[in-house]
């Protein structure tokens, strides 16, 4: 091959590299390794982690452990899904494109919105994108984040809108209290409300939508537990203008926080200000139905510095996993799954309420709740972990230094939570708090 090229050696192909920079170093890295040794290395690392399935597990707060049907993981590992690129050549990418069209339809249906995009990175970055989208749509600046918004989501919005005087972040509201409506004024572009909120409380979207719309502001609804939409009224039916959700719960494993799946849905009129890829239906030269990426004049590869967002990659394979799992559930299964989650959460809440030294703060919840304990939460959760019980998230981990939340633990139950899990948690709490 070098002969055809006319180069004496490989180094000649790197002739544009300044001499002092070319291979002028030795790397403190190992040489190549056979598959069985790499596997042993990785297994040793994995073995040092306590997997959720190893014992009673109640951790949620924005990522949830649900059952994933075996069919989902089998299908997403097919070469044609796994090793394809973004469908820029639609004639040979109809699989991915039709799947995205179906995915957009599913997301629009569960959120009750007109249209959804083909996914974003995750719920947190999606929230920041929604805030920017609301500013473009309203040409107003003030953004108000509810105290029930996941603190990481709040932090991402703060990073995206760095030092912005028009960003108002309300104080954490573990009791479900809210003063967001008082913040809406004529300069408000959007209010951002999460439901179920970070502490598990369900929020009144209808009143929020009415108050926002009366001032020409938009309501952005954030959902971190997408299974809740099987049982709770769709945000679109309550007046939401933009819905952002973390879609991980359907089809995607916990994965220590990523990759996850950002869902975004909105009203038909707002499509052209929506970030991210969109798949649309059309016909081919023979008149057959087909699908293409569309409205790309919003995107960076066409608009460059005038694009709606710098987003390029989305979460295609996670969207596929979501779509397959959702297709397997269907309306009947999705509703059953949500009811099962809620039923287990009621069981958990009632059991916790019976533990001396524990107070359940929620009157309303879907599958997650906050308790106040007689001891600081971080140490208590750590001691429970040593007993093999992953008992939830101390609120102080996400809100350090806030004395109001020091004794709060956020716990989730899903369809995987058993009676025995709850009994083990209750028994351990009784001993620790005795």
């Amino acid at each position, binding site marked *: 091959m070098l002969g055809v090229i006319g180069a004496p050696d490989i180094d000649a192909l790197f002739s544009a590299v300044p001499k002092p920079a070319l291979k002028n170093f030795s790397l403190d890295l190992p040489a190549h390794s056979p598959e069985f040794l*790499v596997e042993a290395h990785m297994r040793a690392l994995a073995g040092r982690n306590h997997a959720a399935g190893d014992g009673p597990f109640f951790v949620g707060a924005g*990522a949830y452990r649900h059952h994933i049907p075996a069919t989902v993981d089998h299908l997403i590992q097919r*070469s044609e899904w*796994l090793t394809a690129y973004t469908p820029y050549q639609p004639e040979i990418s109809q699989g991915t494109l039709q799947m995205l069209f179906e995915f957009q339809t599913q997301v629009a249906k569960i959120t009750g919105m007109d249209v959804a995009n083909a996914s974003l*990175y995750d719920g947190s970055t999606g929230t920041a994108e929604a805030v920017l989208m609301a500013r473009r749509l309203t040409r107003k600046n003030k953004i108000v984040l509810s105290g029930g918004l996941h603190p990481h989501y709040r*932090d991402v919005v703060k990073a995206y809108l760095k030092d912005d005087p028009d960003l108002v972040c309300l104080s954490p509201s573990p009791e479900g209290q809210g003063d967001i409506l008082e913040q809406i004024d004529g300069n408000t572009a959007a209010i951002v409300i999460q439901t179920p909120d970070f502490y598990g409380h369900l929020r009144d979207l209808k009143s929020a939508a009415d108050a926002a719309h009366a001032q020409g502001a938009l309501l952005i609804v954030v959902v971190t537990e997408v299974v809740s939409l099987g049982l709770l009224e769709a945000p679109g039916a309550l007046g939401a203008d933009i819905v952002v959700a973390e879609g991980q719960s359907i089809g995607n494993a916990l994965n220590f926080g990523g*990759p996850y799946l950002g869902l975004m849905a909105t009203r038909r009129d707002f499509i052209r200000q929506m970030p991210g890829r969109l798949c649309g239906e059309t016909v081919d030269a023979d008149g057959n139905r087909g699908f293409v990426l569309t409205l790309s004049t919003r995107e960076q590869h066409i608009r460059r510095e005038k694009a709606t967002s710098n987003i390029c990659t989305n979460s295609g394979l996670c969207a596929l996993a979501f779509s*397959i799992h959702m297709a397997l559930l269907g309306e009947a299964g999705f509703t059953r799954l949500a009811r099962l989650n809620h039923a287990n959460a009621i069981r958990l809440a009632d059991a916790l309420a019976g533990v001396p030294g524990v107070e359940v703060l929620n009157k*309303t919840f879907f599958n997650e709740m906050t308790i106040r304990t007689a001891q600081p939460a971080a140490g208590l959760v750590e001691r429970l972990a040593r007993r093999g019980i992953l008992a939830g998230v101390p609120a102080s981990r996400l809100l350090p230094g806030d004395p109001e939340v020091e004794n709060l633990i956020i716990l989730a139950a899903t369809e995987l939570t058993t009676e025995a899990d709850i009994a083990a948690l209750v028994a351990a709490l009784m001993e620790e708090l005795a």
Partner: protein
Amino acid sequence: MSMNNQGRPTGVGTAGTIASGSALLPDEPLLFEIGDTEHSGVDLPEVDLAEDRLGGFARKSKLDLAGLTEPEAMRHYVRLSRLNHSIDSGMYPLGSCTMKHNPRLNEKMARLPGFSDIHPLQPVSTVQGALELMNQLSHWLMTLTNTAAVALSPKAGAHGELLGMMAIKAAQEAKGEAHRKIVLVPESAHGTNPATAAFLGYSVKPVPARDDGTVDVEAVKAALSPEVAAIMLTNPNTCGLFEPQVIEIARAVHEAGAFFYCDGANFNAIMGVVRPGDLGIDAMHINLHKTFSTPHGGGGPGAGPVVLSEALAPFAPVPFIKRVQDGLDLVEHVEEQALGRVTAFHGQMGMYVRALTYMLSHGADGLAQAAEDAVLNANYIKARLEHLFSVPFPDYPTMHEALFDDSFLKGTGVSTLDFAKAMIDEGFHPMTMYFPLVVHGAMLVEPTESESKQTLDRFCDVMADLASDAKAGNTERFTAAPMKAPRRRLDETRAARQPVLKWERPDDLPQAAE
């Protein structure tokens, strides 16, 4: 077909093919046209919710969500998958996208429950192996680039770019130089570069390319001023060329008080061979899904860790890992930290596992060889085709991609797009077209190290045959292409003018105007 409501077959004919299509090319209906709201492929117990705690917020609106039984779902997604081209089924020479082989050991490791079934917020004491993995990946990335720090959390290349430029902005502000409002971006840059700069409130000042496709240090010097915060330069650049004056450019940028953001999308061409830190970069994102073989998945998920120089290291976002007395700690908050957090949780762990698996499998020696092989393959294609295709920048050996332009098609009646569509009928995914923008009718071919000489030869033979046919006036082969794909050319104008972005029940559609 008869099924119970859990999708368990109770009779014959349960796999439900209502699709048509010929031979092995399926024509597949939408899942909403196959399933209905009663069917489900998941067996879940029905619970009695005598009372709820939903506070009156229970759903009243209908979902109208179709379900498929398990065999229906299997068939639907298998049939759909066959309508996709993929790396595993054929060469995918998309320039700038790096479609290299995705080893399946990566997938197997990412699915170990110790990685896939751990929660980002469970106690740090229960995830020491995960933190150690992130630490090891960081070590590889910093060593391969000779940089001082790395921020792992960005979700994709463009997200990494955003973080890198945020760090630069924060560093300029910390120096009291918030007045610097300009970012220099060469014309050949990816679209994400100017989009990122504009997103952060910078005005973008283009730097023209030289006739040889590289950036002139004198042009950079002329564009630099006390108002310039940074330059965003891709190296190797999008024309497939290593910037020969990159060290001088870095020096000039630093002397002017600005930072050097390097778009690392093409790091796969130089990994283990050149360390970007030696060239003077301050920040560079690395697409784990390009360079380190994590799968592209039909458009993500990616991962875009950013390496940072000493000067920018203090501006890294949370979270990061710190060694403490009894193991590793995850720092999730820093008081008065300039940048904060760019995503919930800790980034794309699933991709970290795959990338580290690839690194360990290849080793430092194997990574360097992969880079060299990628460069060898691209130069081979260039050498075999340059007599038939036009090469806009012949002065330097190319790196990992071969760039052609469409001047060889002048007067043939065949466009670049037509040419690309004809490649589909020959079994190849087309190369990247019309990018980089600095070249008219660009055709950017990236074979990667994964292709054998036999495949490269067949590719070159087909390309040569197509070029000869175009020049011979056989335009039908191009303008009518593709003819053998699952779909003929699709009407993109119609899709944009009358957007149909979701399926509607036929009886819910407004009456057609005709």
